[in-house]
């Protein structure tokens, strides 16, 4: 079943690529139909998910037995919400109206190809498979940015590709280091998690851990490995930005949990304080730099760095915690933050796309007063901004309260990171002030409000943010079940 979710988009991509030129316009509708398949499968998977320890709905096939490589997919309470969020985000990205510059087939085929890579990564239960999807996702995103971006699209795409490829090579070395320590040699994630191969303390464990730390820190990204992110976002087309922020960044944080935390719990615990320091730096640095931005999309990009800091803070606290309650709270919060950030920042980037198609610019100084003219745009923008700054009743708060209560219970000093909450509030209030409030400039009098397709895509994302914000029980139940048992033996 999960296999179908992973490869249905790839089949769709081939189908779209094979469309005759005169039917090219149908590409969007085919893509739309195809993206509902993984989403439906995720809903079914959610219903069938039991929520015990370990992985469920596992599907396995032989692949390279001599290397201990298998094709294995499955879910636990961490990956299921991420995969579901991914399929929702791709649906929204396809629904959102986008000018494909006369190349709809290539665009939508790439988008679906990227969906296969993304879902494959979150569902993979084999380290080798994980790595393959990790790298393939770079290729898909590279072409989306380079082919349909604006500004210095190719340059930004190249930087994104090279930087994250370098990061993934470091990660590959770490994977090989970990693999070589397994006995018998295997890439099977469940087996490695059950018997973490490298005991903490040795030089090799430390080196491998730092390989993962750097590899994932680039992908996430964390300060100071983040400078590929702002240009990639600014020059990427809006739906690609949504996928980049919502899905691709989570690959790094997901790796921190699935690989660094689960496969090297002892070593992670040793360096947990370092990780938490990096997280707090990312939180504060991301928010402070966002405050200085004059470009709407760069601003949102830097708040992503801030939010990924929250995620890592929760993961670091979970690694350090000896109290199971605090650990589960922090880790559940971190996972919730991944989902929440995907939905909310995804929506913010789509809105930035709406701004670009209407104004031709992201410069905040050229906007203003739109509250007087565009009620739908104003409502969604304000909702997304407040969701991002952590307003209760919306998904971000549910995540942040858990991350911070869990973390403060483990390391009270981490409360310094709370300043990030005030700073993001300042960032978004400033953004709303510059885009929506104040007098409406003469040249914006003709600004059209959101269209139906734009509203539909934003509703998909923001309604989920509201549902999770008001009654997140169904989500937290699933995450908690796995967060509780994430490290065997340390319950």
């Amino acid at each position: 079943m999960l296999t179908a979710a992973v490869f249905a988009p790839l089949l769709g991509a081939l189908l779209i690529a094979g469309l005759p030129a005169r039917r090219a316009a149908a590409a969007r509708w085919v893509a739309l139909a195809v993206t509902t398949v993984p989403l439906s499968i995720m809903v079914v998977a959610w219903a069938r998910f039991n929520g015990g320890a370990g992985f469920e709905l596992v599907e396995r096939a032989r692949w390279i037995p001599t290397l201990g490589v298998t094709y294995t997919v499955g879910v636990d309470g961490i990956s299921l919400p991420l995969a579901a969020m991914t399929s929702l985000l791709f649906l929204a990205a396809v629904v959102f109206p986008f000018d494909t510059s006369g190349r709809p087939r290539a665009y939508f085929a790439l988008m679906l190809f990227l969906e296969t890579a993304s879902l494959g990564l979150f569902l993979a239960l084999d380290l080798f498979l994980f790595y393959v999807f990790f790298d393939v996702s770079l290729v898909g995103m590279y072409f989306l940015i380079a082919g349909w971006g604006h500004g210095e699209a190719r340059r930004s795409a190249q930087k994104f590709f090279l930087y994250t490829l370098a990061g993934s090579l470091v990660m590959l070395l770490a994977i090989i280091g970990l693999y070589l320590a397994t006995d018998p040699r295997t890439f099977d994630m469940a087996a490695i998690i059950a018997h973490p191969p490298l005991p903490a303390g040795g030089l090799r464990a430390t080196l491998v851990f730092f390989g993962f730390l750097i590899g994932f820190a680039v992908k996430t990204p964390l300060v100071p490995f983040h400078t590929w992110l702002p240009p990639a976002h600014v020059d990427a087309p809006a739906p690609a930005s949504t996928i980049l922020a919502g899905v691709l960044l989570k690959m790094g944080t997901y790796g921190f949990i699935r690989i660094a935390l689960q496969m090297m719990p002892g070593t992670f615990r040793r360096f947990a304080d370092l990780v938490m320091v990096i997280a707090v730096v990312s939180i504060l640095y991301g928010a402070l730099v966002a405050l200085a931005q004059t470009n709407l999309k760069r601003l949102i990009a830097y708040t992503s760095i801030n939010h990924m800091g929250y995620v890592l803070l929760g993961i670091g606290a979970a690694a350090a915690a000896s109290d199971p309650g605090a650990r589960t709270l922090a880790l559940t919060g971190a996972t919730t933050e991944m989902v929440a950030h995907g939905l909310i920042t995804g929506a913010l980037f789509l809105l930035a796309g709406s701004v670009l198609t209407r104004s031709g610019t992201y410069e905040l100084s050229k906007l203003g007063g739109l509250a007087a003219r565009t009620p739908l745009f104003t409502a969604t923008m304000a909702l997304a901004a407040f969701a991002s700054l952590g307003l209760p009743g919306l998904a971000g708060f549910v995540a942040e309260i858990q991350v911070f209560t869990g973390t403060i219970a483990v390391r009270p000093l981490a409360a310094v990171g709370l300043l990030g909450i005030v700073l993001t509030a300042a960032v978004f209030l400033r953004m709303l002030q510059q885009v929506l409030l104040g007098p409406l400039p003469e040249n914006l009098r003709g600004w059209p409000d959101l269209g139906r397709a734009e509203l539909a895509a934003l509703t998909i994302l923001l309604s989920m943010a509201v549902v999770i914000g008001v009654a997140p029980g169904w989500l937290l139940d699933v995450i908690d079940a796995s967060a509780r048992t994430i490290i065997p033996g340390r319950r």
Partner: protein
Amino acid sequence: MLWSLVAVPMLVGLAVAGLPWQPRLGWATAGFMTALVGWAAVVVAVGSPTSLSWGPRLALTLDATGLARVMAVLVPAVAAAVLAWVAATGGGHEPRPARLIGVLVAFVAAMELLVLADDLLTLLVAWELVAVCSWVLIGHRHDDAHRTRQAGTAYLTTRVGDLGLFVAAGAAVAGAGSLSYDALPTASAGWLGLVAAGVLLAAAAKSAQLPFSPWLFAAMAGPTPVSALLHSATMVAAGAYVLARLAPAFAPVAWFGPVVAGLGLATSLAAGLVALASLDLKRALAASTSAQYGLILVAVGSGATGAAAGHLVTHAVFKALLFLAAGTVAHATGTLDLRKIRVGGASPPLTAAIVVAAAALAAAPPLGGAWSKEEILAAAGRSGPWLTAGVVAAGALSALYAARLAVLVLRPATSPVPPPKTAEAAPLLALAAVSVALGALWLPGGGRLVEDLSGGRLAEGAAWELPVSVAALAIAFTAVTRLVRTDRLATGLVPARVQQVASAWFNLGSLGRLAVVSPTLSLSRALGRIDDAVIDAGVRSAVAVAGACSRLFAAVAELNMDRVVGAVAGGWLAVGGAARVADDNGVDRAVEGVVAGAVTLGARARRVQTGLSHQYYLLVAGGIVVMVVIAVLGRA
């Protein structure tokens, strides 16, 4: 059932905000709020504790205990009067009145959640919802950039305090393993102290205590009915309420009482001076709000939560009345400048309302405001002579500023002032009537009633206290009437130099901008530059090297792309061979096919010419990845 007090007004508020305005909508909303008062009285009497699960570890829990019961009825009651005033004035003299009253109703919903909260999570949720409602309301005129920025200042100042609640929640989880109020006493002393400190920080910011007080001046950018509700029963009241609610749980924390009382007294004295010095009616009232909540903090700090509850109620009624009356006066005279404002006897009902409200603010017996202030004095008396002297001084200040405001406003008008309509005066008279009726607390049994309703305690007062208070009141009134005769009342009560500083809240706002906001912004700009110039520079140089390599590589590739691709494919197949796999022509062809496909795709994707070399490099890199996949797939 308790949830209905939150959910119903929240949904009604959001719906009303989206409707087109008409006077009937205003009256209907006021009617709804009046009905909610009755419903709240029923629900808090019979409703049982309830909760909404947020997964296995979290839940939002509501319970109507003691003071929460009183507040749950008080909040919609004050709101009903405010909404009636908005309806009577045809929209509160504001644009988009439907949005205004809709958000006011949602504001009430958030405050109901806050007072009914029975755990720190629910409190935090409500705390932030109240704050965001106030942001929308203060910036109601959203096309006025100055007002919306003031709303931002108010929001951010109180959000600094919100961090305290996050810390408190973390400490509660660490110390008690739970966010529930009931579990707090089980926390160890250290963690409980941290919870108390966090709650105090949040409460001080919300209730406009030092050093956060100036945010109330920024909040003056909002419409008058917003101020009327925000100062009396919502938002600002939240801080004092929560301290009173949780004070019993913090009893083991030795520093809590003295610090709370000291902070309250300091704020009360400083804000009293500000109120005396202010030349703007609404600002003077705003400063008096800080001062009055300061007195409530003194009561909490002295352990007399019953006195705090009493003053919360009496203050809510007379402060809402004061702001609504100020709104009516400002609309009639077109000014808030205390040097110019004068309505004389334009309207007997208005005059009566102003006299009652000012007398309650001045704590003149036999009004209810005087009763609760005397109870606070009694509580302070138990805590020592310094606190007692301080409260006497704060009381004298409040008598002075209340008398000053009333006398200035009621000076005979120089030009005719249009009297308010009957409908507009009605809510004022209703609030005045309640203020007078609260005087019944002076009757025997009044104290017992407050103790029973609020679940708090009162302190035994000393015999000298009431005469001293009345004497202070008399002196204040004499001084004021004397000054008004020489026309020096507006500016003559405080020395000119003090006047300037005090009317700007002792420059605390500028100090905050200088010490906190400006450095943060400078740091932010500096980091923004560093991010580009330093951190990214390292990356750029690495990219430059990689770019040079890729151009070199591409130069080779351009000579004979096919051969390179073939060679790379061959290389990977050789790797496959190392894994004990035989060569296979089919795979080889498939690999080349895929690479060719990728190249075509890339050719479509790029906009012709320039920078081909980068594309080649990337295509080859991407191709390699695909080839790995195919090669291993084919060999499985």
